Structures are given as C-alpha cells and as structure tokens.
C-alpha cells in the first residue's frame, strides 16, 4: 500500500507527496494538471503494475508446481510467445485480410481474447507434448522450441506487413504499463479476478501435486480436471497481461522463488498470497525505476524487469545454493 502511494508520487512531473495524498482523497489541489496526471495516468498505471506483477507471479507458481520444475514459467514454456503470436496475428495479420486500416487502438476485448487464445494454444501444445514425454527437461525444451516457432511465425508476418503495423507491434512488444484507460483497466480487472478465483479453487490439488501426480491421484484429486483448470487460469492471466502490457519477462519465473526463499515453504496457502504481494511490489518498483524520476524519459518495462531482476535471482540462488518447487 505504502509503495503504491510512493509509486504514484514519482514521475516526469514532480508532484509533492502532500498533494498526491489530497488528490487521492478527492480534494482539490493547487494545480489542476496534477489532478489529471495522478488520476488518469499514475493511478491506472500503478494498478496495472499490481495486476501484471501478481498475475504473472501466480502463473509462474502454477506452472512450476504443475510441471514440478523450478525453471517453468510463462516465458520459458512459450506461453508469453503464444500470447504475442495472438496479438501479432491480430495487428499484423489484418493486412492479409483485406488490409483494413486500423487507426491505432483495437478493441480491448479482441486484443485480450487474441492473446489468451494464443497463450492457450501454445500451452495446450506443450501439455500434449508433455503427456507424451513425461521427462520434465524435455518439456522445457519443447516449450522453448514452441517459443522460437512462434517468434519465427511473427517474423514472417512482420516481413509481409506494412511499416506502420510493424511499428505498432514493436511498440507493443516493448511492454508498457501505462496508456491504459479506466475502461481497459476494468476489462483487465474482470479477467484477472476470474483467474484469481480459479487459483483459490486449486489450492488443494496444487499442494498434493507437490508429491507427484501418482500420489495426488491416490489422494482423490482429479488430475485431468485440475490440470485443465490450472492451464486455463495460466493462459487467461498470461494472455490478458500480455495483451495489455506486452510480453514481460522474468517476473513469472523469479517471484515464486523469491517467495519460497522468504517464507521457506512450499505450501500454496502461504505461497499464493505471498507471490501476489511480492509480484505486485516487484513490478511497482520496476515501474518506478523505468520512469527515471524527474526526467522526461520512460524506459521499456520489459528491459527493467530483466535488467534488475535477473541479478537479484542469480544472487539469491548462489547464496541459497538450492532451489525447490
């Protein structure tokens, strides 16, 4: 909460803490532009950061438990690439479908649906392959292969597209937490909440999966059903996040590990709230860094998460020497 407030206070235009506080309470401040900046730009952006950070972290946690592999995550398994493919088909693919000129913004829902479908498609393919090979190392490699496959398709699409559309796609792929209207944010929140509710439903299967699938089955868990729910949640969350803020690396993989190290547990009753809080915090911090306080520039969020996050994870792993599911 405190950091949420701190994050809002930072930006290209310096606004004193006191005024930010008043604006959030709905009172008038000395400058009206400040009010617009805070309410229409900074608050939506901070909320987006929270949703993106926690959503990706949940997806990462679910994937790591489902595959019982500490390296799993929305990015590694090609799910984010799948979502990118969905978006690419929507943005770049339109030139094939008669070249309808689209002036910037697509409908919020269509972008979200395209990305979720893309994510689900790749995830299902990974699962089908996973059922055949069983070996978790092979599954990760298959995920990576699907990732490069989808990037290749995107490259081919880009080659045949017009410059304006490529630019639009490139801009999207840098990742951005800003530029979301309150209306877009509500679409985001609805889908996010569905994902979150679903996550609460699978706490029990997730915990028993810590013993492996055979034990989980012997404890009365319907593996097929639980797996389908987990996959749906992951593709929905990753899909909607990727649609609205671009492919954001690292968070989904790293936050569950940070949570496990802090709380030294594998119990999902603890881990799920933990990754939500840590994920939200991590992205808020990354966002604050990306804005370069009091300067005019804003760096792509995707670069920041990796630039600052990867060394943190490496340091943690070297220090702790062992990683768990």
């Amino acid at each position: 909460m405190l950091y949420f407030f701190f994050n809002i206070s930072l930006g290209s235009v310096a606004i004193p803490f006191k005024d930010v506080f008043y604006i959030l309470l709905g009172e008038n401040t000395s400058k009206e532009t400040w009010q617009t900046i805070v309410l229409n730009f900074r608050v939506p952006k901070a909320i987006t950061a929270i949703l993106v950070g926690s959503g990706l972290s949940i997806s990462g946690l679910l994937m790591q438990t489902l595959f019982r592999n500490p390296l799993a995550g929305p990015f590694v398994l090609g799910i984010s690439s799948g979502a990118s493919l969905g978006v690419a088909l929507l943005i770049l693919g339109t030139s094939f479908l008669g070249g309808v000129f689209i002036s910037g913004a697509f409908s919020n829902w269509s972008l979200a649906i395209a990305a979720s479908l893309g994510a689900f498609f790749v995830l299902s393919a990974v699962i089908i392959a996973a059922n055949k090979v069983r070996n978790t190392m092979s599954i990760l490699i298959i995920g990576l292969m699907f990732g490069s496959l989808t990037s290749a398709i995107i490259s081919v699409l880009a080659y045949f597209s017009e410059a304006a559309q490529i630019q639009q796609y490139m801009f999207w792929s840098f990742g951005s937490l800003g530029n979301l209207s309150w209306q877009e944010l509500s679409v985001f929140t609805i889908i996010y909440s569905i994902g979150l509710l679903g996550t609460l439903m699978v706490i029990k299967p997730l915990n028993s999966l810590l013993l492996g699938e055979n034990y989980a089955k012997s404890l009365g868990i319907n593996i097929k059903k639980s797996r389908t729910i987990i996959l749906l949640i992951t593709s929905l969350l990753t899909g909607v996040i990727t649609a609205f803020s671009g492919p954001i690396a690292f968070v989904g993989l790293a936050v569950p590990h940070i949570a496990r190290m802090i709380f030294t547990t594998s119990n999902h009753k603890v881990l799920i709230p933990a990754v939500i809080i840590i994920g939200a915090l991590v992205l808020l911090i990354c966002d604050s860094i990306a804005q370069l306080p009091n300067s005019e520039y804003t760096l792509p969020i995707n670069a920041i998460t990796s630039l600052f996050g990867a060394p943190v994870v490496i340091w943690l792993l070297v220090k702790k020497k062992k990683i768990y599911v």
Partner: protein
Amino acid sequence: MQKKNPIIIADAINLAIEKGKFIAVIGKNGIGKSTLLRTLSKVQNPLHGTIFLNEKKINDYTNNDLATTLSLVLTERLPESQLTVFELIALGRQPYTNWMDTLSEVDNRKIQWAIEQTEIKHLQNKRFYELSDGQLQRVLIARALAQDTEIIVLDEPTAHLDMHHTFKIFSLLKKLVDVTEKTIIISTHQVNLAVDLADELIVFSNKGLVSGKTQTLINENVLDTLFSKEIILFNKTLRQFTINKNN
C-alpha cells in the same frame, strides 16, 4: 505407439486378497510386481480384466472414495519441495478436508496417531529432504496411515535400506496389521523376511502367479519356482532361501 509383441508374463490372474492380512508380492526383477500393485491401486489401468474392491468394481469408485479406501507408498522420488514432515503427513488427510485444506480436530488426531505409530515425532518439523532413506520411508508410511484407509499398498518399501532399517520397516508393517487390522500389501525382494513375516504370499514366477498362505505355499514347493534352482534353493527346514553350494 509401440508395436513390439507384448510379452505375456502373467496371464489369467485370478487373485483374491483377504482383509486384515500382511501380504507380500515376491518375484524376480522385471517380472511385473510393480505393474500388479499399480494396477491393483488404479495408478494404471488393467491391461485386461477387472478388479473388485469390497465387491465393487474399482473403476466404479470415485477418486475420493478410492482415496478413503486405499492408500499408497510408491518407490518414485518426491519432487524437490520444502514440505516439512508434518505437512507431508497432513497431505494424507486431503480426501477428508475442505477446499481450503483446513485440518479439523479429527484430522489432527489422525495425524498425531500416525506419527506415534511410526515413531517419528522427533522428525515432524524437519524438511523431508533432510531425512535419511529409512526415516523418509517411515514418514511415507505415516502419510498413508493418516489417510485412514482399509488397505495400504507399498511398492518395495525397503528398496534403498540397509538390513537394520529393512527389518524395522517389516516389523512396523507387521505390527500395524496386528494393531489396526488393515490390509497391507507390499512388493519386496526381501524374500526371507517375507517368508518369515507375511501372512500370505503372492509368488510371481515364469510359470505364472500363485498365491496363498505362506505355510501352504512352502508345503506345495511353490517357492522353489521363484529363482533358478542351480543358483538359489528354498530350504524348508530353515524356511529360508539359500545359495546352492553344489554348483
């Protein structure tokens, strides 16, 4: 997928297992002991035929009903997690808990009882990866006990254990059958201990599968079929397998 000709190891198995007995499945490596146990416990589907549990087809059981009737201790390694011994045993209560997996008074009592029976109270706050193989095996047995089922199936529970721990596991299982009247079915390579302690044997050999009371099988010379006679013989007076020294 595989077009190889299947090798039929045991055909037309007709097996009836009695309640409240300690039953050992013995046989050479790769003969199908694990497959039999995995089929009996619905980990894998039968290649052919039907399994009845309390006069009801095993496929007619819901997941949860089966989970409250039959529990498992498998040979597979647990994924690397940070579960504590207590948490691991508490997972055995999942068939009885609500969607949040909250432990009730009864659940806690059953867990404590399982911990006492297996004598692992001093381990309960440790993480399971810190345990020795022998300790981990007791913890897994405690988990199956906490599941509170009529039948416990254990696949080679003494696979990685030394003689001391092997013996301790066997006597623990024997005690549990006597105290709780549960049916415990194990597969094992500890043939001498099995002959000594099991109420009934299921003997897997190249000639197929024979089951019955241990003494009856000894009298009928069934145990001689287990290994090739040139190397290992069954000595009826010692009630033990011995190396054939004539060769």
